[in-house]
Structures are given as structure tokens and as C-alpha cells.
């Protein structure tokens, strides 16, 4: 069974249709990249998997989105529970104005965990998972804002890992970072796919090429092509895809 199965999804902001009849399957422990020009719907699409779009008024979705075989848009789905299983990392690092430790512990605490020993253990584990432990282990009590941009982003990844999700959504996770930090994030993604299923939105085609196993190209709310990244970048089937990845677009 595929980790994520999307069937005939339409998505609307009021009267505007942002996604048109999208179907795709994502296998477990794979990295899938969504690419496409601004406004193509890729960011809207990634937010469907943790129902982040629910927060925007007057949006609606048609079709079915299944995670582990369960339709996440059916009645009776606990959205907070869903978001525990589907972690998300955003474009700009957004650590909370708290200590490094409290940032990582946040997700555990809001989910009602109180056991100090367990929280400490989980924080360490998550920071290690996000390849940040060595850099911050001596200053866990310091403000997260004291970290560099790249470190903050890895902190946000650690924060997402702490609640043990099985899927990680990344919305342009490196677009606000310098090349060295970007490389670290990419290496991290490659490590993380051993444990997690990762969906990443990126404006940077080379990034999609480097980190993903499969790539989906979006244009004007439609999914034009979805295939192995190697095929997309060497021999795309659609001319539109070819024009976009070769920079002949528009």
C-alpha cells in the first residue's frame, strides 16, 4: 500500500480553483518533490496533507486524500492528531521565542506529555535526528533566536521530528538559507528518508533534482507530469515540463 494516495482532488479558494483533478501516489520512505512556477498550486497541494488549508476561510476540497489508507478528509478525523503524524517545516525558519529545548519540547507538551525524563530523551533524539545536537547540546537553555538561519531551520525540523511523525512536509525549506546551510538541509533530507516519507516543495529545480526520488511538475493548478526524478530531469514526457526545467519557460 502506498503511504499517500490522492485521487481526483480539486481545491478551491472561494470561487478560484487552485488545484484541478490531481491524483498521485507516494510510496513510503521516498522523497517526492513538487516543482513549478509561482502560483502553480504546489504550496496549496502540500498543505492538503496536514489540512493546513483548513485554517484559511472559504476553502473547500473535492476528491479523496488517503494516508495509510485512511481518508483524512472524512468526518470524525481529528486534525490535531493528523498533524502529529504529518510534520511540517516552513519556508522561513519559525522557531518560537523560547529556548532551544522548549522549542523541541513544544510539540510533546501541547500533546499532553509531562514526563521530564521522556521529554529530555526525545529532545536529544530529535536534535540528533536533525543533525543539530552537536552544535547546541551545551546551550539548550539559550534562546532559539540566537541560532543562525540554517540552524533555526534544522531546529524546526527537530521540532517536527519530536512528535514522531511518519510524514514530513517541507515547504521550500531552504529558500531563505545560504548555500552551505542548504547543503546541510539537503543532506539531512537524504538521511531522514530512511525513517520518514518526505514531500518537499521547492522553487529550486536543482534542489528537487538532488534530493528527490520522484518529482511532480505543477502548472496552473494542474499536475502536468509525475515520474522518477531521473526521468523528469533527463527525459520528461511533456513539453511543458521540459520547457520549465530547461528554463525556456514563458
Amino acid at each position, binding site marked *: 500500500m502506498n503511504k499517500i494516495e490522492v485521487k481526483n482532488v480539486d481545491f478551491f479558494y472561494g470561487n478560484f480553483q487552485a488545484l484541478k483533478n490531481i491524483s498521485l501516489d507516494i510510496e513510503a520512505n521516498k522523497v517526492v518533490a513538487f516543482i513549478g512556477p509561482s502560483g502553480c498550486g504546489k504550496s496549496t497541494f502540500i498543505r492538503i496533507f496536514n489540512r*493546513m488549508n483548513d485554517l484559511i476561510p472559504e476553502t473547500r476540497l473535492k476528491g479523496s486524500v488517503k494516508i495509510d489508507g485512511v481518508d483524512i478528509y472524512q468526518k470524525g478525523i481529528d486534525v*490535531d492528531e493528523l498533524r502529529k503524524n504529518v*510534520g511540517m517545516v*516552513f519556508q522561513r525558519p*519559525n522557531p518560537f521565542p523560547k529556548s532551544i529545548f522548549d522549542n523541541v519540547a513544544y510539540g510533546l507538551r*501541547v*500533546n499532553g506529555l509531562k514526563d521530564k525524563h521522556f521529554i529530555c530523551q526525545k529532545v536529544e533524539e530529535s536534535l540528533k535526528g536533525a543533525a543539530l545536537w552537536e552544535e547546541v547540546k551545551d546551550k539548550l537553555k539559550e534562546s532559539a533566536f540566537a541560532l543562525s538561519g540554517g540552524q533555526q531551520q534544522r531546529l524546526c525540523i527537530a521540532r517536527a521530528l519530536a512528535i514522531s511523525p511518519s510524514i514530513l512536509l517541507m515547504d521550500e525549506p531552504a529558500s531563505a538559507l545560504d548555500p552551505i546551510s542548504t547543503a546541510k538541509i539537503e543532506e539531512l533530507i537524504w538521511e531522514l528518508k530512511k525513517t520518514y516519507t518526505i514531500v518537499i516543495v521547492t522553487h529550486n529545480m536543482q534542489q528537487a533534482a538532488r534530493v528527490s526520488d520522484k518529482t511532480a511538475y505543477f502548472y496552473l493548478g494542474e499536475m502536468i507530469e509525475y515520474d522518477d526524478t531521473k526521468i523528469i530531469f533527463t527525459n520528461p514526457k511533456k513539453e511543458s515540463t521540459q520547457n520549465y526545467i530547461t528554463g525556456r519557460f514563458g
Partner: protein
Amino acid sequence: MNITLKKRRSQHLAFGIVSLLTYSIVAILIIILAFIIIRGIGVINWEFLSTAPTDGMTGGGIFPAIVGTCYLILGSAAFAFPVGIMSGIYMNEYAPKGKLVRFIRMMTNNLSGIPSIVFGLFGMALFVNKLSFGDSILAGSLTLALLSLPLVIRTTEEALKAIPYSFREGSYALGATKLQTIRRVTLPMALPNITTGLILAVGRVSGETAPILFTCAAYFLPQLPSGVLDQCMALPYHLYVLATSGTNMELQRPIAYGTALVLIMIVLLVNITATVVRRYFANKVKMN
């Protein structure tokens, strides 16, 4: 005369007028302060601050008025802060964006435009008579609370609005509920700005005379109030009394300036505290 020179002259002229006006505002403030200080400093001593008025307001101190003002500040804060902050949170975080919120916001703004004497009359009608609190600290505090509510609501709303959406998103994405997000992320981040607003509201409340005129303030009470249903003296009202009525206006005048000085100092102190608190929080919750 060539055009460049002309341009430069009008530039200088405009600059001169603008800066002159700015400096004159500072000058006016300094003149008022100096005026009050020079006339009032003479009567200020420990006895003045710690005893009740004697000899038909011509002697003694203003201790009951200071205490009364403090009670009124605390009392109004106890009502206005929770209600105001919660309304602000509701308006910015919960209420669906639309006509309703716009209507509430307009009404709140109108509320702050109502003259304070009208608040006083309303307070008298509602709290003193209808709810039979009588002239009391409770009635006065509630009236002052109504007066400061719009300011509290607006500052809370503005403070929350200034927090980037991405922080809320980050919290929701970790499975936090809206309430948890507000309590653990949004509100702590908005706290410096909210605190500033609250302290400014306190400053406003402490200087108001009209709302307590009919609801609370006593002309003269040598003893301190013993409960919330007691009347109390208050600095602004006391100042008004000293300046407009009494047995001996000549002897009362220095005491009136002394009272004014104390009142101004309290308000100033509150404003300085606001600045310090803001700085302190702002450093603690430094945004990137």
C-alpha cells in the same frame, strides 16, 4: 535667483517650521512641568504624603487621596484587563474576519471617543443607582474600567496582529490547538506590546476626574476606605476640590500644586515603567 537656490531656500524654510513646531511641543511640556514643580515642590515632604488633610483642607497631607487613586487603578485594572485582553484575543484570533468584527471594532473606537463625563453619568446611573453599589470604589472602578476598555482591546488586538502568521502555523503544524497556540506562542510574543498598552491605560485612568465625580470620589474622608463599597478620595478629584472650593483658597493653593505634582509624578512613573517593561520584554522575546 536660480531655481536650485530657490528650492533650497523653501526646503530650509519647511524644515525650520517643522522642527520649530516639534521643539515647541517639548518646550510646552517642560514649561508645564517646571510650573508645577516650582510651585508644588515646597509642600512635598513625608508628612504631606503620609497624612490626611486637616484644618478644612488648608493643612495636613493627601495620603487618603493617593491610596484612593491606587485602589481605583487596581480596581479598574481588575475589570478592564481580563475583559479587554480576552476581547482583543477574540477579535484577532477567533472571530471570523468580516462584517461583525468590523462593526465591533467601530463600536470600540466610538466608545473611546465618548467624553469621560458621559462615562461618569452612565456609571452613576448603572452602578451607583441601578445596581445599588452606591458611591463606592466598586462603582468608580467599573466606570474607569469602561473608560479604559477600548484602549486595552485595541492594543491587545494590534499586538496580536503584529505577530507573523508563520508562528501560529508552526504551532498548529505540531498538533497544537488554537487555545494552546494562543497561550503558549502568540500571547507570550504579544506580551510586551500588550503590557505597554495596559500601563498606558493605567496612566489614563489615574488622571481621570469626571468618571469618578458621581460614582466614587469623596470630598473629604480622613480615614482610609475599609472595603470596596466605601467611598474614597482620589488625587484628581482632590485637586479639583482644592482649586475650586474650600474654606481658604489662598492657603489651599500650594497644597493644590503639591497634589498636582504628585499626580503628574505617578502618571510619569507609570509611563516610564511602560517603556522599561517594553524594553525588557522586547529583549527577552527578540524577533529575528
